[in-house]
């Protein structure tokens, strides 16, 4: 009866429904700091996060982000470390972590590719790209996940590669993404959202009369607006096509 029973196909990341507890384990109470070693950088980063809020528990999500970055995934040990610093039970953090899609309670590859398959992207061919991406990542250190709308439907179909938004994607881009990740360089640089200019034609007209900023004036000059090398010539421009023509639409859809 309990074998091969139908399950939801989508979304569940943690096995657990069918799991009993291990009665030989002790209860998971708040870990005593005296008996739970925590890497010093992680501890101080979590403590800094706790200091930003009136209630230290607010730092749970930032702390879990930090622990996931440190350990690659939210292993029971990683959660116990956060719990020891934050003086919470590991269960509290497990409960929080499992609510959010970006946390992984199972081991995963070190590169994340979140492929948006929500409505706007799927209209533009996201499901085909997702299949291609999965195939390309086979056997690589790349974790491909179907994701809900990532808020970049202007470059649909798109994906977030280690946090970098790229699109519009075609199935051919999947191999390139895997290659770029392997070499450690920028991923699909010509399709990165950060270099894209606003679609509104009124903006282009009114913004046209400004000169480039002085890169020496601020260390932030290259985080947006400027090209990857701070080159004025690379300033916002349609490095990705804004307008898709019909042939391309037919090819991808």
């Amino acid at each position: 009866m309990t074998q091969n029973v139908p399950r939801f196909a989508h979304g569940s990341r943690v096995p657990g429904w069918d799991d009993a507890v291990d009665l030989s384990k002790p209860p998971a109470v708040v870990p005593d700091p005296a008996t739970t070693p925590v890497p010093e950088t992680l501890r101080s980063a979590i403590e800094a996060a706790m200091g930003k809020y009136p209630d230290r528990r607010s730092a749970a999500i930032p702390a879990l982000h930090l622990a996931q970055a440190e350990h690659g995934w939210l292993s029971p040990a990683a959660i116990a470390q956060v719990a020891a610093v934050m003086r919470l039970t590991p269960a509290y953090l497990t409960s929080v972590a499992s609510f959010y899609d970006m946390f992984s309670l199972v081991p995963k590859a070190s590169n994340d590719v979140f492929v948006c398959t929500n409505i706007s992207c799927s209209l533009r061919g996201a499901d085909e790209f997702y299949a291609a991406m999965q195939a390309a990542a086979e056997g690589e250190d790349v974790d491909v996940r179907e994701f809900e709308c990532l808020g970049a439907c202007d470059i649909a179909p798109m994906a977030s590669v280690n946090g970098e938004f790229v699109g519009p994607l075609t199935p051919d881009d999947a191999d390139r993404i895997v290659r770029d990740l392997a070499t450690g360089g920028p991923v699909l640089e010509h399709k990165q959202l950060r270099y894209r200019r606003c679609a509104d034609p009124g903006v282009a007209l009114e913004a046209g009369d400004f000169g480039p900023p002085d890169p020496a004036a601020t260390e932030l000059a290259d985080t947006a607006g400027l090209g990857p090398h701070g080159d004025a010539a690379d300033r916002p421009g349609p490095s990705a096509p804004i307008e898709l023509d019909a042939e391309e639409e037919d090819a991808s859809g």
Partner: protein
Amino acid sequence: MPRPEQKTIKLTIDGREVPAIEGAMLVDAAKHADVEIPYFCYEPKLGNPVGACRMCLVEIEGIPKLQTSCSTPVKDGMVVNTHTDRVRGAQNAIVEFLLINHPLDCPVCDKGGECPLQDITFGWGLGRSRMLEPKRHFVKPLALSPLVAIDRERCILCYRCVRFSQEISEDYQLIFAERGAHTFVGTHDGHPYVAPFSGNIIELCPVGALTSQPYRFRARPWEIEGAAGICTLCPSQCNVTFTVRDEKVLRVLARDHEEVDDGWLCDKGRFAYQAIHVDERITQPMVREGDELVPVSWERALSEAAGLAKHKGRTAALVGGQATNEEGFLLQRLLREGLDSHDLDCRGGAPVAVELARALAAPALQATVPDLEFAHTVLLVGAEPLDAAPILDLRIRKGVRRHGVRLGILSARPSSLDPNAGFVMRFDAGEEASALAALDLALAEDRGAAEPGSAELAEFLRAGGEDLVIVWSERLAPEALPHLLSIAGRLNLAGRSGAGLLELPAGANGRGLREAGVLPNAGPGYVEPPAAGRGAAEIAVAAASGEVTALYLLQIDPVRELPDRAAWEAALQHAPLVVAHASVLTEGLREHATVIFPAESYAEKDGTVVHPDGRLQRLRTAIAHPGAIRAGWQVIADVSKRAGLDQRLLTGPMAFKALAAAVPFYAGLTLEAIGGRGVRWPATEAAAAMPAADGSGTATVPPPPARPASANGALRLGRYRSIWAAPEVELSPALHFTIAEQLVELSPEDAERLGIGNGAAITVAQNGTRLAARAAIRTGVPAGSAFLADGIAAESANALTAPLVEVTPA
């Protein structure tokens, strides 16, 4: 925070105008007006409503959307409809949604017959389903802990169990994992949900998802009866309902009493009922023949016990915490009036001067349990409620969480309430007298002289408001008590409602036994006894030296329960006659008792006990006495009669009458008045009859000299008694996993210095006595102190008597 005032308003429900308390939730107001609104997730005991199940939707005029009546406070003039087509439609829909993934396996479900989901489906559902898709199926049942089984198919995600774990017991081990339809109840990484109050989730579950491992499939609801009782496994004296089938207790449920337990039970109270029906239970009298205790007739046992008459003036009695007021009262009368003996005690420690005892027990100075919830400030002095009276731990948490009570903790050992406290001050193990003296000094006028920590604590106590409750433990050294009394005086706790002292006695009925006169220096009602006698420690010495020749042990094995194990072994060894009432043969009795009477369990007794806040509560016989067991009061009366003192008793209620006649401040109390909810005598008029303290207790006492500081790396010995350290726990199969071992709590500093890792095997030694133990490194333990477990079956700390111990890796 003071209690809110209540105002009555009127509203209209289904066309009928009904009164209600302003601010009450609509669902409750409707219930009082005989209108039933169905719900699953609502449970006022759990705090603010969550509105998750949506079962209680009703129509309120003026609001376009249907509203959840569990979260809508009533207002004057509100017009509510609970039976319109729209409301019906919503109710039908919610039931249909709930049953989508519910397996409907009622015929094989343990909850069947007492299941809210069954009832509500029947009452408010459409009776059919339009769902064609396959239901989800999971492996079931699964263990959630040794006590609780979980069936995730049946779970309707009502939030009750996880809210309990998170907001009531605050252990935060039971959680929702995942999101949406994938949400499930679980724990972190497969750890079991083991926590002192975990069993409450079984009672909270509105479906058959959480079931009791010991109760599963033992009975159907139509085969059982409920019998009201009191749990006397600890001083909390929670009100319970025994589930009885064929004269056996199969389950214990909470019988909500807001002024006692707030509707919760600890796992000891919920599961240790199993000890009532174990093979080890003594069910007939026994006498010693040679090395053996052999079963005998009552006639034989009673006549052996009547041999006490030959020990006039040389008999001593000890009474355990589970004895009723009547049993204690009759026994002290037997000793004092029948045997001309005055050596008796219900306490384990050194005696407290009678003036001081009276002053600390003065009715004007007694706080109540609800005061813990509504006080401005609560101070714990050397008390760990989780171990001493677990249910009060929940009450203090509730006060802090919901009413902003400021919690201060003054203790040697870290408390489970430390994280909830606004002020924590540690002293070295055994230094409570100095710590209280310092606080007393800081509260006195000449503040400048106070030590910094004590001065801050004094400020903390004064800053919050006048309603201040001090919770203290009987385990405090007697020399600390004059300071405690003086502190109470300086904070004006006397006579103020909402403020006062609350003592946590060591024994479940510690307070009642003292009031019944089971003290060496006070008779019933704290009156002057005909002659002062010896206290427990002196009795041990006197018995060993032959000055006391007979011992009457009423539900106590001093070798197990009292300090200085070796002294008690010697005492029992030397006493020619040892009469004991006992449920099981603990080691002291097995070796040394000469007559054993089978003792009643708390489900069998008929009598009264007194809650730490002065509430007399009544035990009623819930099940027939197993085997040949007879009522305790009756046995004492029979022994008494045979020993020459006819106490003229034919029934249990007559014993209560005799007690009430002897204790001045019980005047006018009747069993009928006590009934199922109890009566707090300090709040009655008769309380004025409590003998007043003459003031000698409050005289300024110089602070005691500090005890020798630890030398040569020796650690100060502190003691704790775990909630689980009880014979009943050891006897209950379901609780075997909790059996307490000798766990020595060490500070991280000392552990490092001594080269001891967490969980390592260690040896604790003192004057040639050695205990094998395991180390538990605990942040918050003051460096230089070590805490050892008392009251456990093996390697108990009561073998140690000196203030310092050597701790070494084994």
